[in-house]
């Protein structure tokens, strides 16, 4: 059955659609506000009330702000993390590895997480490299490191593809040259000796072998920023293996590799000539000897799992915010008892009951709106801080920022709590005027 509202929204530009949704979320508070405040000039007494209860107002506002800030901050962070991980995998269109866990292969190839992965042999690699739909095929030879940073063997073509132009220097041309990631401490001209293994499992240095950094990658927003890329030939050589080329090799690093002298690679990056070509290759290399995976697809499955968590987080965020606000409204109920004499005075002077209702409600809503506004600002700060920490720890560039969904969430929160604020406002109307007037 067609939904005319959904159809109408779908035809609007995105910003307008989001604005309409936000206004829709805020509509209840706007309608209630218009009805409650109609005919009254509430501000002088409202500001007097805020000034009289300044510390109480500040505490209540901050409680709301912190709960909103944490809620929207965490949701925005989760989205930023999803986008960051997807962005980091952008260049890794198709990865071919030996059969095993797709997730392990993706984590190793894209995010450089140390893993023990079986190798693809020379003939298989040659088949992949010779495929008519392959624009670029490069081995990804992990396993070495330098000061906890991965040292990955590959080809000059891979460096060109990943970097889209180096930030500094040139691509390696010999087996003793290296490219430094954008966030590594070494500068062009520096030398280093690789260690066997990665992370806690790193063993001794490959003695007698030294790389010289000849180029520097631009920032990619991925763990490759903290890695060193070296010729695959040198990785094989330092491990005492064949260098991928037949005897008489002229020393030019990179493919093509000779299948008979190809020692094996844990994974190969493939860039196909087209999307269709990528699917053709993915289908052809999902065999008993190889596994072809789209990192984007594997990531989507992980994100789908995270999607459920996101929903839980959103619900928890709203529940937390509502609980805090209920606490604040309970506090307001007690506060209205302290204000009872003033409210009774207004009634004795002839103010309609609705005026006291409007005054109490607008006081509560002022705290809620101020808290929501501050909460959004706090959410932005929190998001930036957490993004920085995650980027620092994972090297995945997370640039989380508050988006429309957070604004919609806060809009709905304001409306819901403005509805709840009708309760203490209503209670002020039921108080005995004479008794309150006598104090």
């Amino acid at each position, binding site marked *: 059955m067609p939904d005319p509202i959904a159809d109408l929204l779908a035809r609007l530009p995105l910003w307008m659609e989001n604005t309409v949704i936000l206004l829709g979320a805020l509509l209840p508070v706007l309608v209630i506000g218009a009805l409650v405040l109609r*005919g*009254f*000039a*509430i501000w*002088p*007494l409202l*500001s*007097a*009330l805020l*000034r*009289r209860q300044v510390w109480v107002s500040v505490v209540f506002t901050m409680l709301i702000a912190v709960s909103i800030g944490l809620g929207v901050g965490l949701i925005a962070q989760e989205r930023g993390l999803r986008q960051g991980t997807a962005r980091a995998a952008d260049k890794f269109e198709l990865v071919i590895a030996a059969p095993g866990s797709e997730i392990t292969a993706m984590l190793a190839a894209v995010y450089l997480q140390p893993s023990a992965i079986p190798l693809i042999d020379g003939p298989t690699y040659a088949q992949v490299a010779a495929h008519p739909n392959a624009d670029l095929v490069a081995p990804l030879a992990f396993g070495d490191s330098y000061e906890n940073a991965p040292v990955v063997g590959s080809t000059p073509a891979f460096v060109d593809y990943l970097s889209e132009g180096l930030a500094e220097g040139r691509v390696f041309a010999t087996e003793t040259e290296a490219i430094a990631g954008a966030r590594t401490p070494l500068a062009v001209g520096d030398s280093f000796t690789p260690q066997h293994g990665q992370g806690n499992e790193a063993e001794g240095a490959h003695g007698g072998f030294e790389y010289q950094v000849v180029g520097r990658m631009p920032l990619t927003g991925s763990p490759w920023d903290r890695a060193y890329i070296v010729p695959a030939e040198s990785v094989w050589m330092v491990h005492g293996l064949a260098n991928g080329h037949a005897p008489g090799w002229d020393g030019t690093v990179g493919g093509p590799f000779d299948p008979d002298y190809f020692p094996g690679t844990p994974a190969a990056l493939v860039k196909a000539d087209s999307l269709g070509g990528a699917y053709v290759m993915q289908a052809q290399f999902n065999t008993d000897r190889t596994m072809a995976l789209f990192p984007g697809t594997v990531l989507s499955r992980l994100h789908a799992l995270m999607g459920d968590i996101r929903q839980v987080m959103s619900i928890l965020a709203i529940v937390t915010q509502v609980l805090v606000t209920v606490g604040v409204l309970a506090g307001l109920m007690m506060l209205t008892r302290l204000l009872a*004499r*003033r409210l009774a*005075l*207004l*009634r*004795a*002077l*002839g*103010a*309609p*009951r609705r*005026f006291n209702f409007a005054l109490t409600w607008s006081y509560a809503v002022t705290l809620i709106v101020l808290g929501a506004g501050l909460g959004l600002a706090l959410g932005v700060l929190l998001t930036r801080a957490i993004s920085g920490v995650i980027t620092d720890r994972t090297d995945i560039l997370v640039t989380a920022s508050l988006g429309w969904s957070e604004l919609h969430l806060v809009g709905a929160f304001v409306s819901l709590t403005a509805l709840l604020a009708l309760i203490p406002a209503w209670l002020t109307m039921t108080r005995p*005027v*004479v008794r309150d*007037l006598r104090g």
Partner: protein
Amino acid sequence: MTGISLSISDLEVTGQGGRRILSVPRLEVPAGTAVAVRGPSGAGKSTLLYALAGIIAPSRGCITWGDTDIAGLDDSGRAAFRRGTVGFIFQEHLLFEELSALGNAGVTALYAPRRDRRRIRDSAEGLLTRFGLGKSAARRSDTFSGGERQRIAVVRALAGDAPVILADEPTASLDRANADALADDLMRLARDDGRTLVAVSHDPSLHDRADRVIDVRDGQLELPEAQNA
């Protein structure tokens, strides 16, 4: 300004448990009269005043101001009556400390119909000047002395141009000179502006200035038969 008359018949106000706390079989007050109400504490003076303002609903009888029997009105109707007809002066000033003198004096404008707001504010400003507070109209009310605060409360009661002024111990917190000055002002308001004034007070100087004095004792009005005519 034209005051309005007061007519009470068969009035009874009961408290908790149905205990009778005020009984007025009959009382007539012509428009523009200044009435002082006196009696010992707990006699029912303030209850009478609150009943006359419609703040307390009587359990029986009629309180007719002009043509309106406020005893027959519901809470909203009585509040509307107060807005349009009654200026109330409370014993302890009862001001909003965070508001200025002018803000307090014109506070009724905040819930008055839009068309009346300017008039109330202008009236409050003029009355503050008349009561010697014009130059400090913008000062917070909690910076004023007790006498000045009471004058602000009087201005608040008058700013709406109400034909009825009800005052609960208006001079209680003032020194002699200020009390006399305020008593003079209240009587002048009744006589010159033609308002009907009912002031509950222990202050003999206010009794001396009033057109009529009514005694209240044990919830009963004691007044000569001639005054009821």
